[in-house]
């Protein structure tokens, strides 16, 4: 048991538990706060994977910008609490749960049978080099310059679209 695996277990537990808590809380604001916790745990996992740039962006964009937007809208709109998710035993909800558990078991089985780690020969030094802002920036501004520009255009379109949609009246 080295430090890496202990950190992984802690962060993975936080991520898993907070995601389950998020879908089972009846109050939407509490769900949002658990989602923020989940995002922070994921940022920690990214650091563990040597993806420093993605980890920082995860905190700034997801835990910062997107969740503030969600909380802002949640507190702007009046939303009544839902009934406790697992107390109201509608058959359709139980059916949904059954299907998703079944799918998870299938995927987990496939992952263990496929043994993706068998074909991987990870290299710690190479992995550290991969996640740096230099290597990502180099790739982003050379081979992926067109998708990068398109992403910028998409954000512009989304900004204008959001303003038009949330406007008071359509003229």
């Amino acid at each position, binding site marked *: 048991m*080295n430090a*890496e695996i202990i950190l*992984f277990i802690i962060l993975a537990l936080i*991520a*898993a538990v907070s*995601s389950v808590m*998020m*879908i089972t809380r009846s109050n*939407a604001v509490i769900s949002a706060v658990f*989602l923020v916790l*989940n995002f922070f745990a*994921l940022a920690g*996992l*990214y650091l*563990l*994977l*040597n*993806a420093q*740039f*993605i980890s920082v*962006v995860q905190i700034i*964009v*997801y835990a910062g*910008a*997107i969740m503030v937007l*969600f909380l802002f*809208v949640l507190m702007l*709109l009046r*939303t009544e609490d839902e009934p406790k*998710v697992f107390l109201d035993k509608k058959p359709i*909800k139980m059916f*949904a*749960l059954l299907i*998703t558990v079944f799918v*998870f078991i299938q*995927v*987990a089985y496939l*992952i*263990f049978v496929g043994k*993706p*780690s068998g074909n*991987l020969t*990870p290299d*710690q030094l*190479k*992995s550290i*080099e*991969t*996640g740096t802002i230099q290597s*990502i920036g180099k790739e*982003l501004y050379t081979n992926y310059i067109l998708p990068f520009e398109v*992403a910028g255009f*998409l*954000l512009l379109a*989304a*900004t204008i*679209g*959001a303003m038009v*949609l*949330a406007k008071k009246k359509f003229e």
Partner: protein
Amino acid sequence: MSFIPIEYYLILSAFMFVVGVTGVLIRRNAIVVFMCIELMLNSANLSLVAFSSYLGNPIGQIFVFFVMTVAAAEAAVGLAIIIAVFRNKLTVNIDEINIFKW
């Protein structure tokens, strides 16, 4: 320094994805459904970053960067749509928002 087997990350990612799907299916608040979609996007990001790091190839992380861009745009537009719907129907319960239902 040893690597954790990549299966652990993939299982965690699969678990979070399944939890997100369950949330979309059982929650009735449109904003929470939206947050569950973000959770699913994040679980996909986790497996992309895991493979990128284990293969020593930055392209997986560039894909994660683009997924984050699209998620930000999607959150802005989606929440604007929810606000517009709330203004008309005074609710965000997706059982009551059925104006497109035939």
